[in-house]
């Protein structure tokens, strides 16, 4: 399958008919799910603020006062959203979800390996993974693009713009 630019607007009746299953349809509305997550996060914020941070007084609020207040307000909004319900999930097919996970994994790999492997090796590996494993591009163009980008961007930023970037084994 040819990959390319994102389609901007509108879908044909034919493409709607052939639409893959929507993996975002989790049986609970978007607003309710998001509201519950926000309320849970808010409860955590408030609990940490109360347990670990000084509240101060009315005239001199301490370091925990603002987070506690924000936690309570966020919790209120979260519960209101959950109570209100409604809100549809934007359609997501399995292919998009799988690709999104792979891209996030690539970003996670970059975060993990960046300082240990250095900029050039990490970027080359990340780009090669995305082009070969995710996009199934031919090996030679994919490797050439990965090498060109990782080496070229390193030269542009590290040498010309003097942005310090990590080097990996053997100073590479």
């Amino acid at each position, binding site marked *: 399958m*040819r*990959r*390319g*630019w*994102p*389609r*901007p*607007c509108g879908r044909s009746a034919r493409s709607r008919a052939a639409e893959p299953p929507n993996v*975002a349809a989790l049986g609970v509305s*978007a*607003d309710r799910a*998001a509201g519950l997550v926000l309320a849970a*996060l808010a409860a955590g*914020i408030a609990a*940490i*603020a109360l347990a670990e*941070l*000084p509240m101060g007084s*009315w*005239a*001199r*609020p*301490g*370091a925990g*006062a*603002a*987070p506690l207040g*924000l*936690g309570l307000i*966020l919790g209120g909004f979260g519960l209101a959203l959950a109570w*209100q319900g409604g*809100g549809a999930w934007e359609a*997501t097919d399995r*292919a*998009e979800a799988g*690709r*999104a996970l792979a*891209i*996030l994994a690539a*970003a*996670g790999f*970059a975060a*993990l390996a*960046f*300082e240990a492997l250095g*900029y050039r090796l990490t*970027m080359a590996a*990340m*780009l090669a993974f*995305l082009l070969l494993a995710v*996009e199934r*591009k031919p090996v030679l163009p994919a490797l050439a693009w990965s090498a060109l*980008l990782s080496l070229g*961007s390193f030269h542009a*930023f590290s040498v010309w*713009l*003097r*942005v*310090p*970037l990590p080097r990996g084994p053997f100073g590479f």
Partner: protein
Amino acid sequence: MTETLANLALGFSVALSPQVLIYCVIGCFIGTLVGMLPGLGPLAGISLLLPVSFGLSPTVALVMLAGIYYGAMYGGSTTSILMRLPGEAASVMTCIDGHAMARQGRAGAALAIAAIGSFVAGTLSLVGLMLLAPPLASLALKFGPPEQCALLVLGLVVLAAMGGGSVLKSLAMTVLGLWLGTIGIDQMSGFFRFQFGLVELGDGIGLVPVAVGLFGIAEILASAGKPQLERPRTPAFRELWPSRREFADSAGAIGRGTVLGFLIGIIPGSAHIVASFASYGIEKRVSKTPERFGQGAIAGVAGPESANNAAACGALVPMLALGVPSGAIPAVMIAALVVHGVAPGPTLIQDQPALFWGFVAAMYVGNLVLLAMNLPLVGVFVQLLRIPYAYLYPAILAFCVLGVYAASQSAVDLWIMAGAGAVGYGLRKAGFETAPVVLGLVLSPMLENAWRQSLAMSDGSYAVFVQRPIAAGFMLAAAVMLAWGMRRR
């Protein structure tokens, strides 16, 4: 008036220095690319280039970032017209009639009118910025902590009320951003809040990883793997001149778009997006041939393109005069100023006249650069669109990683970026806007300090926010906006 002209002369002496000129051109060029490419809006583009600006003087850095912002407004129109693909959200309306014109063989005229309208709107709006910002800053110098606090509350509420989606969702995102802004060492007491075992969080959650994650990574996650579009045909240079009739049909639209865009730009919110939508609606309403809209009416290109550029300029008024960003992009620009040791706020124009007036003058120059760059080089820019997105998005991801790491030299920020990307993607799927998160994150320290200082002043009484007339006015306006926003839906 004489003083303004003298200041402008000072500005041009700064703007026409070789270094400022070079970075102005670089910013405009990058901005045009960023505007054309889906997955890289102006916010992600500015965030990515933020680390590069650290080695520059504050004026040069601000000029380059503003060039990216402005250039993106220009660049977004190219893909909208040639491919019906809005490279930037504000260019969505240009798709409709711009692409219809392209199908009729008038792509050159549509591109030219978009560029000319953007130039006229950008230039006239700068006059507005120049005349409005200094008196507004003088007024704001009279503000104490309660007024500052009330003004920030008003800004956040207006953003939520004016945004495209649900007010409740926008407010929730704003509060989430405000909470993220409290992470790190408390400026007033030195307490480390929400450490989670990471000393790197001492300086707080960085704006760059959050902005790049929420906008850059989330956009890549949503766009990668979508089907291939038609390949654009590049109009020949001789096709770029509109007919006399097309000029006549565009003149009024450009004028109306400029005024409307500038006024909307001053108001917090996704100004340039709202402005282009509002302009299209107005042009259709005032047109004697509304049935031509959607079929290639040139006013449908001229109005929105002028409006989004004027709004981009209007959004700089509260940022430069008050230090209050009216949206996520000015917020990132404020962060850049802070990194350079420049305190944003009402004293900026007084304390840093060379920066403010140099910036204004550089914007005039930047408008000319963009006009000169966009039309003759449209073929060059279009070549970039021939690169398949499957090859391009890994490169964009690599630049996201590079930009975030370069800003802080911390791998923790890369994790924050990836996390923000995942959260941004999820929020997008659930129909949430993420710009309020960024704005909340930027404004959080200012708001918290103003709030705590106000309470210290009043010995803990919240009446301080309604007893002082200016603060009370802002609070009332915030309440009215909130009620209006709720009722609108």
